[in-house]
């Protein structure tokens, strides 16, 4: 029931590595992590969920809120998901249509770098 967050940068893109489980109890920390990682005027943020074992609906809400917030500041968020169970959550909830979900970090960085300015 632990969550670890790590922020790094790659090609001008901020990458937030999320490791562990995101549920009702750890979601506030993810929220805070996203807020910090997506500070600045035009944030380009990749949220790496490749090593997330469990994700509940609270986490989806946090990601969606963050997405809306970043979008309002002309930024973008791309979510990296590799595990089938997590991919399925994004498919079932339809959030995959709202959030950009990719399978690799390379795709995420490319997508964010070609994000139109303004």
């Amino acid at each position, binding site marked *: 029931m632990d969550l670890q967050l790590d922020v790094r940068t790659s090609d001008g893109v901020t990458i937030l590595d999320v490791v562990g489980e995101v549920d009702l109890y750890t979601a506030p920390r993810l929220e805070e992590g996203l807020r910090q990682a997506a500070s600045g005027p035009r944030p380009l943020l990749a949220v790496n969920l490749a090593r997330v074992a469990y994700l509940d*609906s609270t986490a989806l809400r946090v990601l969606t*809120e963050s997405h809306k917030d970043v979008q309002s500041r002309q930024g973008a968020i791309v979510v990296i998901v590799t595990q089938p169970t997590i991919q399925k959550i994004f498919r079932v909830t339809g959030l995959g249509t709202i959030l950009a979900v990719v399978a690799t970090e390379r795709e995420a960085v490319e997508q964010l770098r070609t994000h139109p300015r303004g």
Partner: protein
Amino acid sequence: MTGVKRIRLGIRGKIAAVILICMVPVLILGGVLYQSRDQGRLEVVQRSHREAARAIASGVQMFIAGGIEAERTAGAAVTSQPYPVPGIVQLFGAIRARDPLFLSLVLIDPAGGVSAASPPAAAQDVAADPSVTAVQRSKAWAAGAPVRVGRRATLVVSSAIQEGGHLNAIVAGRVNLERLRAILPHAPNPLADGIIVDERGRVIIDLLKPDRAAEAFQEVAGVRQALAGYEASIDGYRDPGSPVRLLGAAVPIPDLGWAAVITEPESSALESARRAATQELTFLLTTVGIGLFLAWVLGAELSAPILALVRGARAIGRGELGTRVALPRNDELGELGDAFNEMSRRLADLVQEMSALQAVSDAALSTVRLDELLPPLVHQVVAALHADEGTIWFVDEQSGGLNVSSSEPPRHLARGQGVAGRVAAEARPVMISDPARLAALDPALAGEGAYAAAGVPLRAGGRVIGVVQVTSRRPREFTPHEMRLLEAFADRVALAVDNASAYEREREIAAIIQQTLLPPERVQLPSVTVAGKYVSSREVGGDFYAVLPLEDARVGLAIADVTGKGIPAATLSARARYLLEAFALEAHRPDTVLTRLNQVLARDADSRFVSLFYGILDARRGRFAFARAGHPPPLLVPAGTATPVALEPPGLLLGVDVAATYVTSEVSVGPGDLLVMFTDGITEARRPDGQQFGEQRVSVLAGACAGALPEDVVERVMGALAAWAGRAPADDQTIVAVRIELADERPVHMHAGRASAD
């Protein structure tokens, strides 16, 4: 980093070093003395030689004096009265027999004539001796020249026997000088020789070498000097033909004009001096050794307790609080050990107190149930106060008395009764350390073996809601510090109680809201039989499902899950449930219902999401139209098959995007078809190892249930789920099974009855 490696010396090493440093000058001095001793040694040797020579000289004098004394006694005896000659001879014979000093003894008259002699043959020899003449010439005594008789050195000693001031007679005797060998003191060591020489330097007696030539010492300077009346050392004399260098001394023998000589080979003399010096050095080194040994012992005495303290300090550093060191000593180190143990104990107490308070604070913030929360907290405060029992009483609102609900059997105190009752009544801490008073105030406690008790009120919102009470089975006081600790504990317990009851209330309300949203567990309509089961999690989530009878015998079927827990989730559930019902009655297409519902929910300031599946069953036409908003796809198991079909049209969660649109899909259905709907609390239920139950298992179970009653389907899935993840779900679990019945035209009505348990 200085680059200089510091040598680490323990206390022992330092003490030894100090002693060694102090010893260095002593050792150097000793070495210097030892080295410079050759000079001094010679003096020592010479001094000892002279002493030995003096001893011999006085021995000779004593010897001669003894002879004179004997002669005088004998002479006086025979001249004091007329004595017959044969008697004198007999007496002299007896004297000689008793004392072999005299080889002969002769009585001579003042004119020089022999009066008596023993033995008679010696008369002339002795009477002619120059010493007799010397006595005749008024000397009190005289000794003649030493003469060898056979192998023996002899000497005539004459004594004057006077009466009334004139010479009455002379007693002369030949004295056996060889007797000196028996009575002279020994030389300083076996190699040293004692020699007596006469006034001309001729050897009279040589104690060690009887064969030494008589003239051997005549030319020796020291001997000559002694004969001249002065003590002198002999240095470098060699016996003829001998390579041995002799050292020695010569001293005069007064009255006789002789000299006593001591000789010793130089090597032997120096050796004995060196031996003496070596003994001194050995003594010195032994002293140093003993010093170092004592330093070691003293160091051990000092360093052992310090090392014990170091080990103790390290143990505390590792977190082994309360570590004790054993230093049974009466000195300052013993005091240090006591202080250390005291510190360690207090540290352990302090940490225990802090962790007890911290535990309560943590507990106050947690959402654990009160009856699970309190016993470990009580245990901790009892340990922190070194008490034996701890009890938390709660005020009974109706009676005003106190209860302990968690104990078995439940305990009760009337208002104002006992220690706790007094604390509650007076709303202040009470401490009783007098067993008699305790027995009077609280016989029950005293009966349990308590000797002392303390209680503090639990306050919440300005009211006393209970009492924290601790008791001790041995006589003791609770210190002001301990009472403050108990109060701090009580404050936190009160907070925890407050939080826990607020939480319980919220949970109950959420559960009530949630229950009102649910249809009966079994709904029987002409077109469908619906069985559903909702298992709430501890925090109560936002699951609901609905069976909505619509126009034309159609039935709306819905299942939903609101994100979050507790009252906020429950109220949103209620809102979504009634909005759904309202829109379902107006609109005829599921996508329209979802679109409208989404528009309302997405405009809410509360940004919770709702996943929802909504379908409209038209059994008469054999059609099922449905739309999905981010909800896990339900499974349709057509009658006579075992392969469920997932109903999965695309669609976003409700409340995310106000502009989201939904899609209606449609399938043909017939009697006996089974529709299984569920929430993610089912599929995401986890085994202890973390593995989720998953859609696949639900699907297999549903496929195996073709033709079964809906309640059996529900039962089987929930049974499998309980076996998988236990019966205390982390999230709400909802499952609904719908069996499509034969379509008929009978009017719609609901059976509001509970499903049977099996």
